[in-house]
């Protein structure tokens, strides 16, 4: 067992877990933040994407111990003061989600994607960048539309609020 301390959504947290505990299980089970999901166990589907020190990572293939001392942002930490983050708002406006299961990972991936490309995204780039996120409901059409809309709105100026 290891005692781990990290900052999650701006709040310092500590917890006991097995050495083999994955970050996603630490987030879901120890911290009760169940917005981050497990969809595949083999790091293909991206339902578990969170931000570690500002970059998107797959929390299903990261040990909780590896995240000790880092700053983690989960889907629960994205909306500030009750206002949806522009990416969240764009997903809603463009019907970029159906069952909602892949959505947290999609949104966290999109936030990082927009930040890395400075808000300069085109459809082909968005589709290529979504290689690590699988959605079974939307056919990606409205996810791509939502990310492009958010990217245009953020214009590279307002990057992830984290």
């Amino acid at each position: 067992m290891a005692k781990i301390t990290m900052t999650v959504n701006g709040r310092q947290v500590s917890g006991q877990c097995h050495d083999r505990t994955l970050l996603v299980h630490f987030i879901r089970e120890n911290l009760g933040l169940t917005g981050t999901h497990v969809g595949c166990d083999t790091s293909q589907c991206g339902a578990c994407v969170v931000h570690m020190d500002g970059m998107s990572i797959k929390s299903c293939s990261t040990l909780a111990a590896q995240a000790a001392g880092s700053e983690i942002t989960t889907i629960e930490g994205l909306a500030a003061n009750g206002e949806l983050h522009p990416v969240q708002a764009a997903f809603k406006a463009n019907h970029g989600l159906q069952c909602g299961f892949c959505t947290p990972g999609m949104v966290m991936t999109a936030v990082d994607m927009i930040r890395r490309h400075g808000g300069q995204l085109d459809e082909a780039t968005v589709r290529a960048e979504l290689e690590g996120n699988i959605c079974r409901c939307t056919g990606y059409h409205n996810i791509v539309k939502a990310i492009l809309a958010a990217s245009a709105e953020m214009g590279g100026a307002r990057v992830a609020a984290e």
Partner: protein
Amino acid sequence: MGVEGIGARVARKEDKRFLTGKGRYTDDMSVPGMKYAIFVRSPYAHAKIRSIDAAAARAMPGVIDVLDGKQLLADGIGNLICGWMIHSKDGSPMKMGAWRPLAHETVRYVGDAVAIVVADSIAEAKDAAEAVVVDYQELPVVTDATKALEPGQPQLHPEAPNNLIFDWQIGDPAATDKAIASAAHVTEITIQNNRLSPNPMEPRATLGIYDGGDDHYTCYTTSQNPHVARLVMSAFYNVAPENKLRVIAPDVGGGFGSKIYIYPEEIVCLWASKRTGVPVKWTSDRTEAFLTDAHGRDHLSTVKMAFDADNRIIGLKVDTTANLGAYMSLFSSAVPTYLYATLLSGQYDIPAIHANVRTVYTNTAPVDAYRGAGRPEATYLLERTMETAARELGVSPAELRRVNFIRSFPHQTPVIMNYDAGDYEASLNAAMQASDWNGFAARKAEAAKRGMKRGIGMSCYIEACGIAPSAAVGSLGAGVGLWESAEVRVNAVGTIEVLTGSHSHGQGHETTFAQLVADRFGVPIDSVNIVHGDTDKVQMGMGTYGSRSGAVGMSAVVKALDKVEAKAKKIAAHLMEADESDIVIENGELKVAGTDKAVPWFQMALAAYTAHNLPPGMEPGLKEGAFYDPANFTFPAGCYICEVEVDPETGVTKIIQFVAADDFGNIINPMIVEGQVHGGLAQGIGQALLEGVHYDPANGQLLTASYMDYAMPRADDLPSFKVSTSNTPCPNNPLGIKGCGEAGAIGSPPALINAITDAIGNNRLTMPATPQKVWAAAHAAN
């Protein structure tokens, strides 16, 4: 149409919780004292179990107990069943073999559950599962349905000699044979429909809670139909009587059919909770999902389509072998029969049809309904055959279809279905225009200059949705009625709860069902809550599948709204001393038509509950329920056109454009309907281009058991789609709606394969059209 009423493009009410991580899926549930389950599963596709020794596992750290099938049987838990009786053409009933929730005598596919380990943590349960010693005696294996029917093959169930479950037929064999004999041209083709894994992104999960104080069970589960789950677990599996069993399907992360069925895990976790005295949660991992979620499709068919000298279809003969896997899943028998062969007339006026279907046991996962369920198989068969015929006859595929379209309604097909309305030419024309069909030759020539092979293909599909008139399906063997229920509760302050037996797992019912109420009473959708997915809240329901929530579920809501409206008008008329027939409801007010007299909606509601001044004899309160049993299926139809470029060097297919023109009747929320089409198209394109479940025929091992091996469509496999709708309202339900959930998956595979075969000039190509297959076919053609 108000801003939030029928037809409005309303953003979804449920989105905020999903977007902020506040969704509540089954695996998110946690209750005091909860422990974790791991299932010990068979690593063999076929074996006798000599013994199960769990002593070492029970002694491991954190382990509460290990339970097996003998204990389950001793406690009286029943076998899993198939709920739709099909009779063979000789009159004999289908041959259903025993499916034990935990196998203790024979395992019949890799993944068959043998024991459950309950422990303090998932990790400890996994460790202990490894320590359960099961002594297997391996048996020979068969995975292919056609082969399983041959003499001398391994036999799965003693009840089913030669692994044949039933040999069923529909239509008129003599008339069809006669048509073929007299035909000017007969197109013959073999059609393979590849086996798929549904893959909702949320893996199945269940939490079983036994409360010894009340002798009561609660089951959280990833279900598309919690009431059916309760009914079946109570009536057939002997878990608990219905009044002692509450089933809750909270947020469910997609289903696509695979979450209709009751699987062993729900039953075993409930039972294990009673045995161990602790709540027991099990969550599938993705490999378990590939191994044990019911698969879809897996048909092999031969087809003869007969034409007269004017290119009119005069007969269609189909012979299909369908693989149902190792056990008969809940609705497995209905899929390759009444959901499949009844649609073999397609959009065409075909005077004689005969279809024969044999269903077969193999050492593979059970096969049941997957998005479209039978209708994709019928459409793929028919539309590949039409395309092949057009090529053989030297006529354009559009013209061959046009010549054969059904043009007057109602239309009785030779295979049971009575089409109520449609305009197939309208969607064909819309799709051809949207795809610039006439400009294709120039685009093909331009592509050829770049060394690319460009092709175009179409598909005209029809499906039967809104399943289904209860008496009709009862006469065909269904074990349940397929109506839907609704209850509309108006609160004393005028806010409204709608309870529905439909279940939303991505379809957006919390928005669209609320739109019905907003449209009727002029109240904002924020004042309307949709309640579903809990058998303690909603009395009964048949759930969501077969694109039935709109046509059947919403129709039940409409019936309940009619009753609420009638009583509300009576109250308002009484309050305003007016005649009830003069009351109109607009913008949240009940008005006396032609006057300025009005009572706000909330005031009428308050009056219903204070009951100080109601019409004489009226009961207080405002709550009405309704059951709606549909009069017929609905018949969505449309035309899809796909344009591709194939790189002859690599065999890689790129979709240049995909056009969908659908007729869904009236539409409640176009944004949500388009989303349903997009998702269906992606699954259909996935089937045609990427996806396929593969078992090793020698030993029955599943070779495609993770996302590293099973090719799920990614964003860069797909284009943006061009979708449009036309509207011939359904005459058989109050809203005139048909259903849109499956169309995309039904219509798209043949359009794509027709396009690829057009591009490469070789009609022999099976799904999935991987680069290797396309490359080989393209080179074989040259």
